[in-house]
């Protein structure tokens, strides 16, 4: 019987792990791992700033409210009103884009999707890689393309920060040098994003390292926005589980007490 229980537990945990690993893997495209710290308020604030300045002009975050973002990210309200909002908006308004959906459709061919939940549909690693994988492509209607999401309608919104990239080629896994973590090492003057090697044609305002950091901040902010409750639920969870462990111990003592009757 013990053996059977053990087998069941093993099977259960194996299938949970296998399936969650599978679900996390997603579409199997090569993505870079993003390093986010959801308790780093400065990083989230920076992500929010980039989001409002570069994303919100075309994309909305229509389930998210300005004042909630300010509260959760500890951004003072005046700062929010002055830097992040349009004057006509109330602080509790939803973060809607100013671009009319019909115009957007006419310009890009598709309405830019709402980004409130993008981090729950796409994994953070995917977003982080996607944001850094834009390159110049004269054959595409917008003039831009993306090595992770080929022929995406979206142009590169942040080229003034990143600079303009050109594709050198795909990584050849047989000959590519990797570091001790298995991460490919880029050659001098080259950048590797996902499985693609780029080189900078024009430098941007940020260095490659700075831009990567900015994009991981933005990814962190998008992750936060996908589920604002995640900043709170861990704290509540620790107290709840602590209480339940105490309760369980008490119940065990009580059971032992009553079951002394049972011989």
């Amino acid at each position, binding site marked *: 019987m013990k053996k059977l229980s053990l*087998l069941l537990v093993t099977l259960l945990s194996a299938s949970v792990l296998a399936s969650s690993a*599978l679900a996390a893997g*997603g579409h199997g495209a090569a993505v870079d791992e993003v390093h986010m710290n959801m308790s780093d308020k400065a990083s989230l604030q920076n992500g929010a700033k980039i989001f409002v300045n570069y994303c919100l002009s075309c994309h909305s975050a229509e389930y998210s409210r300005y004042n909630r973002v300010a509260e959760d990210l500890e951004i003072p309200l005046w700062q929010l009103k002055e830097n992040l909002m349009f004057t006509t908006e109330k602080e509790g308004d939803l973060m809607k884009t100013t671009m009319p959906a019909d115009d957007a459709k006419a310009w890009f061919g598709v309405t830019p999707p709402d980004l409130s939940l993008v981090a729950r549909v796409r994994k953070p690693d995917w977003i982080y890689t996607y944001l850094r994988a834009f390159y110049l492509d004269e054959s595409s209607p917008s003039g831009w393309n993306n090595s992770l999401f080929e022929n995406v309608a979206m142009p590169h919104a942040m080229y003034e920060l990143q600079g303009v990239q050109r594709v050198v080629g795909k990584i050849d896994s047989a000959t590519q040098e990797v570091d001790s973590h298995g991460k490919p090492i880029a050659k001098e003057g080259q950048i590797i994003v996902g499985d693609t090697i780029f080189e900078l044609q024009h430098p941007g305002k940020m260095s490659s390292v700075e831009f990567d950091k900015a994009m991981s901040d933005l990814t962190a902010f998008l992750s936060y926005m996908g589920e604002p409750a995640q900043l709170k639920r861990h704290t509540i*969870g620790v107290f709840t589980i602590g209480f339940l462990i105490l309760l369980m111990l008490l119940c065990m003592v009580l059971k032992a007490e009553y*079951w002394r009757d049972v011989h």
Partner: protein
Amino acid sequence: MAIHRHDNHKSANAFMEWVDQRFPATKVWNEHLAEYMAAKNFNFWYFFGSLAILMLVVQIATGIFLTMHYKPDAELAFASVEYIMRDVPYGWLVRYLHSTGASMFFVVVYLHMFRGVIYGSHREPRELVWLIGCVIFVALMAEAFMGYLLPWGNMSYWGAQVILSLFDVIPFVGPALTEWIRGDFVISDATLNRFFAFHVILLPLILVALVFLHLVALHQVGSNNPDGIDIYENLDEDGKPVDGIPFFPYIVIKDLIGVAGFLIVYLGIVFFWPDLGGIFLEKDNFAPANPLQTPPDIVPLWYFTPFYSILRASTTSLLEAMLWINAGIVAWMWIRSKISIKAKIAFSILAAGVAVGLYFGSGKAWGVVLMAAAIVCFFLLPWLDRSPVYSIRYRSMPFKIALVLFLAAFFILGYLGMNAPTPGKTLLAQICTVIYFAFFALMPWFTSIGQTKPEPSRVTYEAH
């Protein structure tokens, strides 16, 4: 005033005396709790009955609070769920309790069913307890399926589309029936609205009623125990089983440990990993329903995947294999089996009918039949199991081997159901499908062979 008391339960005080003359409060309390005798050797597996009731209560309670904010309207449903997750104070907690609760309900119910199988709780005289339990399982699947449409995410939409299309295979009326269930030519606002009605009113009522019947039937025959023996065979001078203890307080207090332990796991998931890496909340369901774009792989939630795998495994090659197996069983029966010639002829005619069906039927139709059969098999268990002993502790080796094979097949099917099919995986699913059905089909045989251990006359229990 002539009040005829039909029982001799002593009321605790004057007030209860007054009540008891009008309502059987003390009688019910005594018969179902204070004097309901359960075996003293209940173990870990006996937690899951009370935990299933706990989950039913949790789902109803959280469900009530979700309906206060949810909008069953195709235009508003998705946004109203996000409204609950963000704008409603603690709405995220109520929603996660409900979404994680649905999965945990199934975890508990599956383990509860497994307990029945390993200790023979479905055997005489508890067949009706088991049958009502199987109906609860089916009702719960219907409840979960309809609930899954409500967030109106893209997986909700396509999942419902695919599963409802199964009704298409019913001869003659199928397509019309599907249309009638949907109330439209595709899944639409009308479907969402009626699923909402079923999910929040009809099925909860049915479930509560069934659980009540389940308990009534159980208390008529008494609970089984890990030794699978009848505790009423050994009575003391008062006519009470010597191995029995009153359900209240002893089992209730013991169950409290189970409740606390279970809550640690359940709330641990709610607070620290509510989507369980995409298993409890699928990532494609965070995109709104889009009738023009199917998600890359449509997979149901984990608790349906073993059956979904069986559905998908049904291809022409599986039907061919089944034809051969069918023929093999008949041949073996004529050569080796000792049953009467009449039974042999009857069985052969039945097998011939199945063979004709397999030969002319489509893979799709058989998939639906097999999936339904996979669930119906559970209903037949009390009559398929022929072992002289009830508990796995005394069962023969062939049963144990068969059970382990079945478990492995069930888990592999469940895992494969969460994956996009590939030729290799489909073959594996087909092998597991065969094992799954073989477990039930061969059960009368493998439970009657091999050496069982002698059952004890008293339950195995050592006081601490």
